């Protein structure tokens, strides 16, 4: 479903990576490894359609993503390494705004339930600026519960999370894969995605 051919990325005069080919089908995951600066985030942004590769193209359901941006973004959930929350709004308002700008109508009850599942029931009416980094991260991951998307692209989803939260998120990821979803992620700790889910590890090396 998600495929990429001959992707290369150039930053300044440096080639971060080139000739990356990948093919990911329903229920499969791709785990990007590599040192800092190896181009993991750049590759994720190219896969999400946020930046263009220097060469090559990304295909979603056999068509280039540039030709079907709206459809592709409907199927995509991307969570970058920035918080992605407005500091002055509460978690509920943040999620409500994000979902509505995606063209979805989500009830407050659904948001409350998603936040409860992420362990944030008591924090839902606090402005995001008073929350810890881990709580913000969990709040953002609650989007995954609100928005049906086939492909999840997550940049460091376990960052700043405590052990319990990591276990929760891993359960969430496993359930997503079990229901036929696709997952692309980077992480500095090896995620446990279950033995049944087939996946790949892509190792990016820092250009010398």
């Amino acid at each position: 479903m998600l495929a990429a051919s001959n992707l290369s990325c150039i930053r300044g005069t440096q080639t971060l990576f080139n000739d990356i080919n990948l093919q990911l089908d329903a229920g499969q995951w791709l785990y990007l490894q590599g040192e800092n600066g190896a181009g993991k985030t750049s590759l994720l942004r190219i896969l999400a359609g946020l930046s263009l590769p220097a060469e090559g193209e990304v295909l979603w359901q056999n068509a280039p993503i540039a030709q079907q941006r709206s459809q592709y973004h409907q199927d995509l959930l991307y969570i970058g390494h920035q918080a992605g929350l407005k500091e002055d709004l509460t978690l509920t308002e943040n999620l409500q705004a994000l979902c509505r700008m995606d063209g979805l109508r989500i009830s407050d009850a659904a948001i409350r339930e998603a936040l409860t599942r992420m362990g944030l029931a008591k924090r839902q009416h606090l402005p995001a600026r008073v929350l810890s980094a881990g709580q913000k991260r969990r709040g953002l991951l609650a989007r995954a519960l609100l928005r049906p998307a086939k492909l999840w692209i997550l940049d460091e989803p376990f960052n700043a999370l405590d052990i319990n939260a990591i276990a929760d998120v891993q359960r969430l990821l496993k359930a997503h894969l079990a229901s036929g979803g696709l997952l692309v992620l980077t992480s500095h700790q090896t995620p446990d995605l279950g033995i049944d889910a087939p996946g790949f590890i892509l190792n990016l090396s820092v250009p010398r």
Partner: protein
Amino acid sequence: MPVLAAYFAALQRDLLLVMRRKTEVLTALFFFVIVTTLLPLGIGPEPDLLRKIAPGAMWIAALLATLLGLQRLFAADHADGTLEQMVLSPEPLSVLVAGKITAHWLVCGLPLVLLAPVIGLQFDLPADAIGILMLSLLIGTPLLSLLGAIGAALTLGARGSALLVSLLVMPLYIPTLIFGAGAVESYIAGLGASGHFSLLGALLILAAAFAPWATTAALRISLE
């Protein structure tokens, strides 16, 4: 209509953010009030002279007040990653951008229109000229927001973007300034303002059609 819902979502979100942090908006409004209040004090009580410079002075103050907060239009969303999420929305980015521009006008442009009658009294403008001034601001300030959004998007992420955006947008504002202030001046001179209004209106329609689209293209480049 999901597209309309997305437009209002972006609009409502930005208005809510302004309500939470009022000082940023009030800065621009205070600037407008202070400049237009100090001017008559500095020039002295000569009603004829004040009446003559009133339209130009108020339009320049409105223009500078708009420029003041322009750079933050996308910079804040860029810094916290919410702009990325807007780009990834299934709804067209230009619709969300149009919502943000509308919010910017409601917050930075409309209050200037509403303040104009009070400020106009300080310049001893007659009531009917104040009406013309308000109308010219009502057509002209959305134009300032629309054109400014293009500049804000182009300079996003650049160093010294506050200065850059002024340099970039100022030349685009000149026609608005000339026709906006000119409408009031020619009305006071007894020539009628309909020609100026037609041109301002034409500019507004053109900008409303193309500015969100151009802003979107600029944002995509800046986010690369």
